[in-house]
C-alpha cells in the first residue's frame, strides 16, 4: 500500500524541482521512498503527448492512438454505446486529441485524465444531446515555462491512483467504474455507502494539494 504523502514536505520540496519530484516522505514511518521507476514498464504517455503538442509528431500520436483508442471504445461501450457508435466516437475523441493537442498541460492532468474528459464530453453529446456547461478556462500555464516537477508529479499521481484502484476489493472497484461509466446518478452516488470515497479521497490528496498550489500561483 502507499503511504499518505505529507503535504507540507511536498510543498517545501517543490522549489527544488525535478531533483525532488517523486521523492515522497511517508508520514507513518518516516521512511523515504525514492520513486525512480517512472519509465520502467509503463510508457511515458505524457512525453509522447508533448511530442504531438509541440512537434505534431504523427508517430508519437500513432502510439497514443494504439493505447488509448481501444480504451475509449471500451469506456463508451460500458457507457451503453453499440460497438459501431463507440468506434465512431472513439475516432472522434482521438481526432480531438490530435487537433486540440495545444490544450494539453501535463502539469494539470495526466494524458489518461485529459482523454477521459474529452471522452466524457463526447458521451454527453452522444447520449443525452445535452450541452455540457464547462468551467471558465484559467491560464494554468502561467506564462512560465511548463513546470517539469508538476508534470512529473501529475504522472506519478496517475500511477499511484491506478495502483490504488487495482488494489481495491472487486466490489468497490466495480462501483467506481459504474459511477464513471455514467451508471450511477448523483443521488445514487450520494447514497451509495459501498463507494470507497474515503480511500479514493486519501489517494487523490496528492493531486488535490498540487492543483491547489498551482491555482494559488495562477490567481
Amino acid at each position, binding site marked *: 500500500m502507499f503511504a499518505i504523502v505529507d503535504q507540507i514536505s511536498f510543498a517545501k520540496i517543490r522549489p527544488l524541482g525535478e531533483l525532488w519530484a517523486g521523492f515522497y516522505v511517508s508520514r507513518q514511518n518516516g521512511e523515504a521512498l525514492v520513486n525512480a521507476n517512472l519509465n520502467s514498464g509503463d510508457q511515458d504517455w505524457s512525453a509522447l503527448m508533448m511530442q504531438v503538442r509541440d512537434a505534431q509528431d504523427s508517430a508519437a500520436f500513432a502510439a497514443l492512438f494504439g493505447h488509448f483508442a481501444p480504451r475509449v471504445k*471500451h*469506456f463508451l461501450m460500458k457507457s451503453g454505446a453499440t460497438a459501431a457508435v463507440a468506434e465512431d466516437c472513439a475516432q472522434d475523441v482521438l481526432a480531438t486529441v490530435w487537433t486540440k493537442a495545444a490544450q494539453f498541460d501535463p502539469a494539470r492532468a495526466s494524458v489518461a485524465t485529459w482523454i477521459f474528459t474529452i471522452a466524457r464530453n463526447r458521451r454527453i453529446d452522444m447520449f443525452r444531446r445535452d450541452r455540457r456547461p464547462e468551467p471558465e478556462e484559467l491560464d494554468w500555464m502561467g506564462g512560465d515555462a511548463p513546470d517539469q516537477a508538476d508534470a512529473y508529479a501529475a504522472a506519478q499521481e496517475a500511477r499511484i491512483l491506478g495502483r490504488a484502484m487495482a488494489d481495491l476489493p472487486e466490489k468497490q472497484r466495480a462501483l467506481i467504474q459504474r*459511477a464513471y461509466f455514467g451508471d450511477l446518478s448523483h443521488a445514487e452516488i450520494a447514497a451509495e455507502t459501498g463507494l470507497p470515497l474515503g480511500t479514493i479521497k486519501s489517494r487523490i490528496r496528492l493531486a488535490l494539494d498540487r492543483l491547489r498550489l498551482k491555482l494559488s500561483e495562477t490567481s
Partner: protein
Amino acid sequence: MMIRHHLTDSLLIAYAAGNLPEAFALVAAAHVSLCDECRAQLGAFEAVGGAVLEAGDGAVAMEGGVETCLARHVAPTVAARRSGIMPAPLAAYVGGGLEAVKWRPLGMGVRQAILPTSKHASARLLHIPAGAAVPDHGHRGIELTLVLQGAFVDSTDRFGPGDVEVAGEELQHLPVADIGLDCVCLAATDAPLRFKDWLPRMMGPLFRI
C-alpha cells in the same frame, strides 16, 4: 471572493463523470468557475476517471486505424467569456451579462428567468430585491442555489457571492435577500418546489417552479 459553501463530493463526482442533469451541471460549472477549491477537487475526481479509463482490464480493438483518425475534421469550439457577474458557462446561456437577462415577474418583487436546459432538471435565474423573501418552500428533489450578487439568509446560514446551497428534501426554507444589494442567484431543481401557502402553490405550475 470568500466562498464558504461548496459543492458536495457526490455532486463533483457526478459532474466529473458527466452524469449530472444539464441544469445541475450548469450550477457546478458556474461555481467551479468562481471557486478554486472546488476546481482542484474536480481535477482530482477527473483523475479518478483517468484511472478508470487507463485500468488494464478494458480495451476493445478498433476497426479503423490511426490514418482514419488523422483524416477526421474536428470543429473548433469557442470558449465562452465571463460577463459581469455571470461566469463564462452561465454567460453562454444568458447570451451576455445581467443586462441580457429576460426577466419575468414572479410576484412580490421577485423576478425569474428560466434558462433552456434539458428537462431532467430546470435552471432559473432569480432576482430578489434587497430585504425581500422568496416564498417559504420545501423540495421534493434537490435544489442547488448559487449566489451571483448580494446574499441571502435562510434557517441554515448566510450565502454570499460564489456560495452554493445544496438543499435536500429535509429543508423547508424561506430565503431572504440581504439588505443593501438585490440578490441575483442561479437555482436548479430536479423536481418542482413545494410551497407552503396556497397562493404560490397555485402559481407554481403557472411559473414552472
